[in-house]
């Protein structure tokens, strides 16, 4: 793609996970031109990340095949850095900028892992739970490595299983939520038998390891080339030796682009109607940004959004929305049960001490932040959130630790050569 080039499309879709793929395919099936962008080199998002299609479940492989056989223009390795006022996305690919002008935009930016700062979370070898999974799916070899997994949420189980299958020794899986709530959640899975069978399969894959509820990491220290992980159940503290640790606390909807576009955000999620329309005309949102509910829900929402956005004459309240509506209702129930079961316990607020780095980009320690400051003051006085991650990692972490609401996202959404911004029309408001 040439520098400064401009693409024009009926429907632009940002994010090529299940929601974005389903949306792009649905829009194309309606006869609309569709451009699908993602920062990754391959479609699939995090859940369908793969090295070869053979690794994927059949349903995922089918969606990727539908995408390949569709008229969708797929642009890999493209990072969306901002929006022009005139219905255009500004994106960067291999150091070159380009714009995508759209008539309808579908935001399917997925979710990121929630990281909570604790002493030692910046050590090499300490990754997120999803981070460890992503590395594994990208070709990292873990044979014989001793791994501690900790944090919260249903992701712990499949990652433990995948690590065990790949030859790692999973020492312990620590879930901070109390056992009663976790098993209550598991019992609730009877309503979605597919998920229950999946959970049983994951558990049997790492039977040698302990799965401890009501247990969390208090600190990690480096010891030679390895790690010493200190765990607690609230009564005593003990240590585990590990080569690698995966620590993550569930998922946070990625609402940065939607926020920048002016879409209404409510409780950290993009607000949409039954047709996945946001509060901004011609902008739709599908999948995890509307609430963490998993791939099935994302596919259903993506299908609704793509169908509506792909209709040339404008979205009508029609049959396709009603059909996907049933799937939406059951997955929304799942999302609610998920957040009840894996709510973070109060002790999580106190994991970081004054010397703990809270902003990894700028190395800002918690002790430098005055609890009386707003998030904006924190940013201005300490540079927390001003680094390349643009607050994606420290934003949710600081919000949780200080109890202060996050700032609105800043332009560019991702670091970009100054020329990229200078070349485009003025960015819309949103920066401060």
């Amino acid at each position, binding site marked *: 793609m040439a520098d400064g080039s401009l693409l024009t499309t009926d429907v632009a879709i940002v994010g090529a996970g299940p929601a974005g793929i389903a949306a792009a395919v649905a829009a194309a099936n309606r006869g609309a031109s569709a451009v699908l962008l993602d920062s990754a080199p391959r479609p699939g998002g995090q859940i369908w990340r793969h090295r070869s299609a053979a690794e994927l479940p059949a349903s995922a492989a089918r969606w990727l095949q539908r995408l390949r056989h569709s008229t969708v223009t797929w642009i890999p390795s493209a990072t969306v850095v901002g929006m022009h006022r005139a219905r255009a996305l500004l994106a960067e690919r291999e150091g070159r900028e380009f714009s995508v002008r759209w008539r309808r935009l579908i935001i399917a930016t997925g979710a*990121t892992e929630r990281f909570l700062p604790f002493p030692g979370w910046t050590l090499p070898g300490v990754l997120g739970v999803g*981070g460890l999974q992503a590395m594994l799916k990208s070709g990292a070899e873990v044979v014989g490595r001793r791994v501690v997994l900790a944090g919260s949420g249903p992701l712990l189980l499949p990652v433990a299983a995948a690590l065990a299958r790949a030859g790692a020794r999973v020492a312990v899986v620590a879930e901070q939520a109390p056992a009663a709530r976790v098993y209550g959640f598991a019992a609730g899975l009877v309503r979605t038998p597919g998920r229950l069978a999946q959970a049983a399969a994951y558990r049997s894959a790492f039977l040698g390891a302990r799965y401890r509820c009501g247990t969390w990491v208090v600190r990690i220290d480096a010891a030679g080339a390895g790690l010493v992980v200190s765990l607690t159940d609230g009564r005593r503290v003990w240590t585990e030796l590990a080569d690698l640790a995966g620590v993550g606390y569930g998922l946070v909807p990625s609402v940065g682009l939607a926020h920048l576009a002016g879409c209404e955000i409510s409780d950290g999620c993009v607000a949409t109607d039954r047709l996945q329309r946001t509060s901004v005309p011609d902008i739709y949102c599908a999948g995890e940004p509307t609430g963490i509910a998993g791939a099935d829900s994302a596919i259903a929402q993506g299908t609704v959004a793509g169908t509506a956005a792909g209709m040339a004459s404008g979205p009508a309240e029609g049959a396709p929305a009603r059909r996907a509506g049933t799937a939406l209702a059951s997955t929304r129930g799942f999302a609610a049960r998920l957040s009840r079961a894996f709510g973070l316990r109060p002790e999580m607020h106190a994991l970081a001490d004054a010397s703990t780095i809270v902003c990894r980009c700028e190395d800002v320690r918690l002790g430098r932040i005055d609890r009386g400051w707003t998030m904006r003051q924190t940013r201005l006085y300490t540079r927390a959130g001003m680094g390349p991650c643009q607050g994606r990692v420290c934003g949710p972490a600081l919000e949780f630790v200080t109890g202060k609401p996050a700032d609105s996202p800043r332009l560019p959404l991702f670091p970009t050569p100054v020329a990229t911004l200078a070349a485009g029309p003025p960015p819309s408001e949103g920066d401060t």
Partner: protein
Amino acid sequence: MDGTPHRVAADITLAAALFNLGVRAPRRSVLGESRGPLCGMGICFECRVRVDGVDHRRACLEPVRNGMVVETGG
């Protein structure tokens, strides 16, 4: 990588290749701490390295290529 040629699997990311070569910390932080990948998906920028002369490339988003010149900051 850093002047030494390495043979790695063809269909993996640069972040995975660095991991398999034993590079746990491809960069140093503002205060000089060793840092390695955290999110694995292009969000945290902890795995950033110089690739073919271009700074700040996220290793987790770069597929490995023949002849790729990688400079770590670790």
